[in-house]
Structures are given as C-alpha cells and as structure tokens.
C-alpha cells in the first residue's frame, strides 16, 4: 500500500522520473527514465524510453496548459489557459467608496451609470478597461481607461480587500464583475488619467449619483491601446 499525505498546501514531492535531452543541431531527442533507489546510496536512472506525444500532453495538463471543454458565451473576447477576456455592456451598478474623507463618504453605496467595460483575468490578476461604445469590441477597437480608483494606467486592479473568486471560467465572469464592484474604491492607483471631466474623478461620480442617465462616454480618457494590444500585453508596459 502506498501512502500519501495531502493536508492543506503541504506537499512532499519525491523524485520519480527524469527527462534527458539529446541534441543534434536544432533537433532534440528526449528520453524518459524511471529513477530507481537502492536501500543505501544515490538513486540511479533506469533505462530510458522515448518521450511520446501522450507524455507531453500529460505534462502540459499538469502545467495547466489545458482547458476543460466549455461553451463560450457571446461576451467572451479571448480565452487561453492563462487568461479570459470579456466585455460587459453599460449598466447601472452599485459603487462603494472608503469613508476616509467627506467627499467619498457622500458617494458611498449609491447606484451609478457605468460605461461598457472590458475585463481580463490573467493568472488571477484582474484588469479593466472601458469602451467608448456600447457594443462588442473588435481587435481594432480603441480602449479607454476605466474611470475607477484602484486601477492603474495599464488597467491592472489593485485587489486590496476584494474577495477574489476561486474559479476562472466562462461561468464565473459575473462573479468576477460582482466581486470587483462589491469592494471599496479607496484611492487612485498611480499616475493615470481616469477621466476628462473638468472637475476630475470625484466631480464626475458625484454628478452621476442617482441620475437616471447613461454614462457620459465623452469623459472617458483614451488608454492609447487597442483591444488587440490590451490582450497581447496583458497589463505589461
């Protein structure tokens, strides 16, 4: 009987196999060897077997480079094992601000109109951009900066107290959106042009509080980036 202990994230990894690579110029041959142990002394390699496509597929699965088959909804823009990008049409949403000062206290816990947004979850990091038009963007669509605190010039969200969802799948997108808007906006995140509103960020949102109107997209600042660039750069400079 082989015994294993798996409590929490603690793991004991035992040396089981080794891959040896042989090269001739640009051509590489790989062999897979069992690691065998004597009662005493160093372990040794058993006879090698050619590495098969099946082995590489198992290895890739182990590295997470695979996706469970799922039907993608129409709002998904891009999907790889590491990232998922989707857009969300304009709609009213509840916003929370920290009560650190008088201005934000008055804004806290109110409904506001929001522009259409593009979200990206990349390796459990959340990024947000805004859209100038309320329709599904194409690769060439120019993006706007999301008009929110805690979101930097690259669109990266400082997660802070946000309850980060466990799952990243087509079925969990609304959970990510809800988690984002359920956490408090506390401060500007670095040097970022959040809005072109003449009164700045706080005046923009105070002018929108409880107003039954659409978000004025003319006050969105240009992100100097297309959707294609956003997806490729994944929040990098």
């Amino acid at each position, binding site marked *: *009987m*082989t*015994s*294993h*202990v*798996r*409590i*929490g*994230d*603690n*793991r*004991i*990894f*035992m*040396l089981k196999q*080794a891959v040896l690579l042989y090269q001739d110029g640009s051509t590489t041959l790989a062999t897979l060897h069992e*690691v*065998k*142990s004597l*009662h005493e*002394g*160093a*372990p*040794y*390699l*058993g006879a090698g077997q050619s590495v098969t496509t099946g082995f590489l597929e198992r290895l890739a699965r182990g590295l997470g480079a695979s996706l469970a088959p799922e039907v993608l909804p129409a709002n998904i823009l891009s999907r790889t094992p590491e990232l998922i990008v989707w857009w969300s049409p304009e709609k009213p949403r509840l916003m929370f601000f920290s009560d650190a000062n008088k201005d934000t206290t008055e804004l806290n816990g109110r409904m506001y109109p929001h522009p259409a947004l593009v979200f990206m979850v990349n390796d459990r990091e959340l990024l947000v951009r805004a859209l100038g038009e309320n329709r599904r963007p194409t690769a060439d669509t120019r993006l706007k900066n999301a008009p929110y605190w805690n979101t930097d010039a690259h669109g990266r969200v400082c997660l802070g107290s946000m309850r980060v969802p*466990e*799952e990243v799948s087509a079925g969990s997108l609304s959970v990510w959106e809800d988690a984002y808007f359920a956490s408090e906006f506390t401060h500007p995140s670095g040097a970022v042009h959040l809005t072109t509103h003449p009164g700045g960020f706080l005046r923009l949102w105070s002018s929108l509080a409880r107003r039954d109107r659409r978000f004025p997209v003319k006050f969105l600042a240009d992100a100097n980036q297309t959707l294609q660039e956003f997806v490729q750069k994944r929040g990098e400079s």
Partner: protein
Amino acid sequence: MSGTADVLSLVGQSDRTMFAMAPWASTSASRRVPTAEQLMAPECGVVLPRLNEVPVEHRFLADDRETIRLAEILVTLGIGAVEDWSQSGRDPTKYASLTLQRWIRNHGGATIDRRFDLDVTLGDRLVDYSDERGPRETLYLIVDPEAAAFAVLRPTLEFLEKIHLRLPATFFTHFVGSLNRWVRVYDFHDAEERVEMLREWYEGEANAEQYEVPDVEGCVPQSLKERPLSLRSLRAIGDTIRRDETRDLVNVLLELCRISKQVRRPEFTEEMGEQLMDSNPPLPCLLAAFSAGDAVAGCFDDEAETALETTPQPNLIIPLKLTEPTSVRQGFRTLGVVCETLAAASRLLDLMPGNDDGVIGREK
C-alpha cells in the same frame, strides 16, 4: 605474459614488487611508467547513471497547524513512534507520512502488497486537487486502488464442491462479502447489471438482435445457486476436513470473516456526499472472475474504459476529527482492521488454486 603485465615496470629499491601509476593520460617516457588509461579495462558501455548530488525529495510547506495537531494526537495516543520524529527531519507532514507507513506495515502491509495495489491517502479533502476541502479540523483516511487485484474463482469452487455441495456458494459469499464490507469487489453481480443495462440500451435500436452481450449467466457455476452455509456450519465442516490444503483454505476464510467484522464501517455523511457530488462509483479493488478472460472479466474491461471519465468515489473514507482525539484513535483502528482484512484476503488468494498469476512483482 599478459598484455597488462607487459607494460608494467618495477620501481623502488625494496624487495617488494611495486607498480607506480603515471598521471592520467600522460606517460613518463623516461621511466616507462604506464598511464591509468593503459591499466584500466575498457568500459563495457552499459552504465547506470547515478544521481549523487540530486535531492530525491522536495517539501513544500504552507500552513502546518492541522498537521502539527494531528502529529500531537498521534504521539499522545501512542500511534506515532518517537524514532520517526528524528527520521522525519522534524517535519510534521513527513512524520504523519512515516506514521501512516509504519501503521500499514504493522498491519500486514507486505502481505497486502503481494496481491493488492492500493493507495492510502491522509488528506483534508475527498477529491484530490479539489478546491473544496472538508470541514476545518477534519481529515480523512482514504483507501483507493491503483489497479484492481485479480482472483480466479472456478478452480477453488470446483475443488470445494467435491467436499460439500454448499461449500462453493459459502466460500464465494463470505470471501466477497468480507472484502465488500471495506472495498469494492467487482464480481458476477456487477457484470449481470452491466449486461442488463446494455440490453436496455440495445432494445431501442432497430437491429437489436445483432448486438451481442457477454454471456455472464452462462459462466456462473451452478454450485453458486446453492444456499450458502452459515459461518457456524462452515466452522463445523472445517473441523472435519482432513486434507491440509482444504482445511487451511477454510481456516483462512474464517479468519478473513472474523477480522473483517471487528469494527463498523464509518458512516457516509451528507457532508461527504456534497464533496463527492456527481462522482462515479468507486473503482474496484478486486476483480473476482471465474476464469481469466471470462464474461465477468469482459464486462469489467468494458466498464474500465469509462470508469475515470469523472472522479470516482473513494472506496473507503475514514474521517478523523482533530477536535476529538478518540476519533483519530478509532480511525487508525479502523484502518488497521481494513489492512488486516486485506492481508487475510491476500493469504487466502495464495491458497486458492489457479491464482499464481495474481502475485504482483515489485522491485525492492
């Protein structure tokens, strides 16, 4: 004179013959001293590469609180051994692992390994690598097969039928029943269910008669239709048997039945059911066929192809509540009984004719 001796020369002034070696690959021409290369036999070409400086183990430690609590309980209850603490390198996870290995070894581990290929996992969740763990302060001992063991029944049943008409059914019922109490055994009943399901599928087809299903009914010995004897009657018959092999067979069967019933199987709780929602049935730990390649084995192979499409339920789940040390004691006691049951089954298989092929060859 051999080739090697031919290149040797004497050095030193004493009476003793001594041979000096030149540095590697550099011959001293003036003294005709041979190089090491000349002295060494040519390599044979077959080398086992050794991994002298390669660590054979990496440990990843995160939150140790539950493991430390478990280790404390194991020591307090006398389940864990003091010497394992130093061997573990003072690592609670490794200590728990060594304790588990020791416990299995002391309850027939080597005997079990002759016939069964099983895993025992001590973990905090029922589905490996699931994001959802069980309740806090609750751990589980989980028993599951790596591969199913194989038992051929027909020679034993035919042999027993000559002694008593009802012995084959008695043997089958108690052998399979004792094991089924703890782990899943795939027998002709499972195969019959499979065949029934296949027939239902094919009934709706246009040419249903063209489909052939395994003839499970045809491969079941008539002797199994007899009513099994009670254990008391079996014991009485065992006392009258003179032939050593048969008496041993009956005695080990009785031992298997006795050990198997020493503790009650832990309850399958609602919380376990929630963790295992949408799971497949447990993987069989033993395939009990009548002969190699019969209809029962055929159905087993057929089912095996899809058995892992979704996560299977564990064969056995033993919960350990860290807030109740007695539950840890009871859990390890239960695991001990399971191990001893499997060891008795392994011994019984050794005695059953026609089962030499079921021994698992393992590298030491």
